[in-house]
């Protein structure tokens, strides 16, 4: 095999410029594949991290997946009920204390129970509609990502006495309010209260920064005239991947619609899969083009080295040896291109990691300030694997042809 390797290297070094072009083709393919994979994977990881960090891993709301069944339907298999209008459910999760205790018994994570209602914040003649979220500050701090996005104050500030509210910085800006300003909150039931702004946050998500206000749970219950009610349970799990199993059990036990984060973002996750398919298709296409370069050079070498093939066969080399020789040449080009491509890919990734974006408000919150990059050995392994497979195919076809050459034809031709 060492002899074949020496012959192969001698052949490809003998075609200096073509070899450089073929290796450069593979290297470009591998390098850009690595950079692209790193960027795509980084984007996906960043996106997933945002999803997992900012959203509850499991959310239980006061809805049911199907309308409540009539008792007769449960007792009699053939019961047919016509013209019945289902009883109006009281909105909210019934027996919240019992549900909370049930969940705490098996959920491996933190739980926050809240009441979410709609309302309007009024200040200085400006009205802005928001979601009013009644929370227990301690529970919320353990579950919500907002806890890490405070510009002023914290969830604990709500417990400071009086009617307090925490809003996003953009909402405060729209209202012209600031920390300490008292704004009026009007609920959908018409209840109106004055609330002092005790905290400002900036998540980077406009819908939240402009459309959410946090108050104490009891204040939300008063505003919505629903004493002791809650309609939203959010769970942050120790292991986000366990969300579907936890959600299934919680829904089975409580009867309320329970959605894991994967289900809530199903279409987004599907889009990521499609994006990956597109990425690997593009990478495959790049490698295919690089493969043509290798095919070209190996074909040229087999054509030019037909006399060598005849000599080697006359000396006692087999068809298999000839096949291996030119296959090794293809793989050597693939290997050389992969090695150079690794360096190129790493350099591209490093260069991209130095790019820094200065965006407004980016100092706090979740806006991207750098290109999201994932550093993984697998990107290098997969890109080189693609390149070597493509090189092997590109080398095999002319190698097979070379192996079939009849030495007598070549010797006669040379005589």
């Amino acid at each position, binding site marked *: 095999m060492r002899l074949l390797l020496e012959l192969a290297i*001698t*052949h490809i070094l003998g075609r200096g410029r073509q070899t450089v072009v073929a290796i450069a083709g593979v290297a470009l393919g591998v390098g850009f594949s690595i950079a692209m994979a790193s960027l795509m994977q980084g984007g996906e990881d960043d996106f997933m991290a945002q999803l997992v960090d900012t959203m509850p891993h499991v959310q239980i709301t006061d809805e049911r997946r199907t309308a409540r069944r009539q008792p007769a339907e449960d007792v009699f298999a053939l019961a047919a009920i016509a013209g019945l209008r289902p009883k109006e459910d009281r909105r909210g999760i019934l027996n919240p204390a019992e549900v909370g205790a049930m969940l705490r018994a098996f959920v491996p994570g933190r739980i926050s129970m809240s009441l979410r209602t709609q309302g309007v914040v009024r200040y200085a003649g400006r009205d802005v509609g928001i979601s009013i979220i009644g929370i227990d500050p301690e529970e919320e701090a353990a579950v919500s990502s907002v806890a890490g996005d405070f510009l002023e104050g914290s969830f604990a500030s709500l417990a400071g006495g009086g009617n307090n509210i925490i809003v996003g910085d953009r909402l405060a800006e729209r209202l012209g309010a600031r920390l300490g300003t008292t704004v009026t909150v009007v609920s959908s039931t018409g209840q109106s209260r004055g609330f002092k702004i005790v905290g400002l946050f900036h998540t980077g998500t406009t819908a939240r920064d402009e459309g959410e206000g946090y108050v104490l749970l009891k204040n939300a219950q008063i505003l919505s005239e629903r004493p002791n009610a809650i309609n939203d349970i959010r769970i942050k799990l120790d292991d986000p991947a366990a969300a579907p199993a936890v959600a299934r059990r919680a829904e089975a036990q409580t009867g309320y619609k329970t959605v894991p984060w994967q289900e809530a973002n199903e279409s987004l996750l599907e889009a990521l899969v499609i994006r990956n398919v597109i990425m690997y298709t593009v990478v495959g296409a790049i490698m295919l083009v690089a493969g043509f370069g290798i095919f070209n050079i190996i074909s040229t070498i087999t054509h030019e080295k037909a006399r060598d093939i005849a000599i080697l066969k006359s*000396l006692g080399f087999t068809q298999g040896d000839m096949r291996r020789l030119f296959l090794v040449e293809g793989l050597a080009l693939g290997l050389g291109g992969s090695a150079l491509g690794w360096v190129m890919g790493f350099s591209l990734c490093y260069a991209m990691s130095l790019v820094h974006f200065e965006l407004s408000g980016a100092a706090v919150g979740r806006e991207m300030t750098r290109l999201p990059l994932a550093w993984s050995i697998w990107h290098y392994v997969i890109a080189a694997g693609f390149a070597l497979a493509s090189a092997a195919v590109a080398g095999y076809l002319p190698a097979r042809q070379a192996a079939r050459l009849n030495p007598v034809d070549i010797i006669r031709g040379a005589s």
Partner: protein
Amino acid sequence: MSPLIEARGLTRILPATVPVTLVRDVSLTIGEREFIAITGPSGSGKSSLLYLLGLLDEPTEGTLSLAGHDTSGLDDEARAKLRLATIGFVFQFHFLLPEFTARENVEIPMRKLGRLSPGEMRKRAAELLAAIGLADHLDKRPDQLSGGQRQRVAVARALANDPPLVLADEPTGSLDSKSSEQVFLILDDLVRQRGKTVVAVTHDLDIAGRVDRRIHLVDGKVVSDERNDAKEAEPATPDAR
């Protein structure tokens, strides 16, 4: 003499719209330590017969036994293995690998056979080249050697694995008279001193007249197979047709 080559009814027909018969019903026996010239006009099938004897080509009909091995039905690998150990080829054009030095070219068959250690291969290659007067040219590539020197390297390469049989296709055809004589003497020496059998295709009547035996072909058929009286007084192999 025990037969090194035993051919029976060897025929080679090139398939074509009008099939071409290159070698027609050739039977011959070649023993050890023989220096044989195959002669004949151009297109008479001399080289084709040599390629059949050297297992580079397969007969359409007939059988060939080489060093006691029946070669019919052997696959490519078995034929290559037998060729590697039993036959050394010398062609009209030296056919050396241009990127390798004289010594490396001679080492290639040894490396393929793998019987010797790298050190032994280097030593044997140097000895073979020294024996044919190329001791000072071991590390020269073919393009740094003269035509005669290249052909001598090709002879050394043919002897690399110490095969009992050397087949030479017009070994002096592209050389000047001085180099031709050198190459002839080397080949003759292989038979006399090293006990090899040399079968050489040649147009050179002078060479044909100086070997042990001369096989003359016309239209792919052996028309005469006789021993040169000047060399030996033995009759030609009786089954030669």
